[in-house]
């Protein structure tokens, strides 16, 4: 479904990505682990075409995202939903307006009736366990966990084939973290969605991942199933994972 081929990206002298290659099969959840500033978000932004690589390419469902511009890029992005680290809800809009935004604004050509738009929003909010009572609230009135859930409902409302999660559990308490992990698993099980998750949360990563990669110094230090990554002999991988596994 997603193929990243030999991706390089630098910002001045800072070489963030140095030859990243990975494949995410349809219907799987792929987690990219890494420390702060390791380039995880940069990698994800290449996948959805928010950044252009210095070298290499990204293919999504056979379409080359790299190099696309304007309307072609807009069309290619229709298969995506994305949940941002800070939720990135539009703070001047209510929850209902946020969740329906991809339907009312991005699909001007094929406008849905307002009742149908509202029905879909309520349906997706139900997927993340939010009721109609939040529809008229503004993001500033919601807790961090609720904002993430609204962000996921917004990402799901246009029935995307792929959902990208940027640090979905950062800044959340353990119970909400557990809940968000459940949401990611749920989205895959119930809707068959392909997911790419960027995280530094080892516990969450091992819980939701079908496949996992560890990004270090611009390249993938380990890549495979969670069991394979855990058995890796790479010193950095062992050190990174030991921070969590030794606590268990």
């Amino acid at each position, binding site marked *: 479904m997603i193929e990243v081929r030999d991706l390089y990206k630098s910002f001045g002298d800072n070489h963030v990505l140095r030859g990243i290659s990975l494949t995410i099969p349809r219907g799987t959840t792929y987690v990219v682990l890494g420390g702060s500033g390791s380039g995880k978000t940069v990698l994800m*932004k290449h996948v*959805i075409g*928010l950044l252009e690589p210095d070298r290499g390419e990204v293919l999504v469902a056979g379409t080359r995202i790299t190099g696309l511009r304007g309307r072609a890029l*807009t*069309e290619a*992005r*229709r298969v*995506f*939903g*994305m949940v*941002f*680290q*800070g939720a*990135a*809800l*539009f*703070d*001047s809009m209510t929850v209902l307006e946020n969740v329906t*935004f*991809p339907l009312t*604004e*991005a699909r*001007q050509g094929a406008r849905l009736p307002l009742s149908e738009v509202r029905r879909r929003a309520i349906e997706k909010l139900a997927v993340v366990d939010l009721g109609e009572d939040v529809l008229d609230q503004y993001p500033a009135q919601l807790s961090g966990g609720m904002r993430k859930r609204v962000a996921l409902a*917004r990402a799901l409302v*246009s029935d995307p084939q792929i959902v*990208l999660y940027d640090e979905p559990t950062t800044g959340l308490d353990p119970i909400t973290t557990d809940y968000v992990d459940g949401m990611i698993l749920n989205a895959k099980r119930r809707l068959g969605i392909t997911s790419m998750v960027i995280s530094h949360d080892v516990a969450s990563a091992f819980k939701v991942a079908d496949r996992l990669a560890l990004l270090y110094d611009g390249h993938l230090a380990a890549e495979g199933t969670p069991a394979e990554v855990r058995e890796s002999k790479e010193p950095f991988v062992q050190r990174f994972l030991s921070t969590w596994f030794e606590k268990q």
Partner: protein
Amino acid sequence: MILFAGETFAWALRPPFRAGLVLQQMAFVGVGSAFIVGVTGTFAGMVLALQMNVALRQFAAEGYVGGSVGFSLARELAPVFTALMITGRSGSAIATELGTMRVTEQIDAMETMAVNPIHYLVVPRVVASLLMFPVLTMLFNLMGYGGAFVMGVFVARIPIGPFIFHTQELVDQHDVGAGLFKAIVFGLIVSVITTWRGYAAAGGARGVGEGTTRGVVASSIAILLADYAITFVTVGT
């Protein structure tokens, strides 16, 4: 910034045309700024009338106070003062709002939802500014002339007949039109600069603050430079 402006003009011509968003911005830029523009206009007209009265009395030409004030307002003071006031009030708010949306990834989110942020956020603000700057300039003209009338006729005791007659003599539609043309140019300058500064903000709250400050300063200087350039070209030396 030139590329940004070019992209804005290109998107402005493409459907969908979001009339609701334009009206919302017209209310913010126009209705929201009406009070401060009206107050500034009134006091500018009042002060100018008093100053003119002192100067023209030396030549026993007090009757020309209304015309002199009207001419100055129409061609120069109304468009420039109005643009500077809107820059301070609405331009700064536009830069801050877009800057905050940029650093909190709301603009990135919009892009991932297949909505072009320039089309959705920038175009309505630019169009609203192009429409509302001339309207507010006319408001400044009216309030300024009203202020001058009160000061001239009721305080300085200038006879009402010469006051009105010389206004009609000195100020015609070309003067008002020249001021409104300037207002349109200033609307374009302010909206493009402040939206660009917000859109390109980076580096958290500090970046948003810097973007806003730069947007306001650059807009103010650009207004003065453009005013000089237009005046030089239309009036000459």
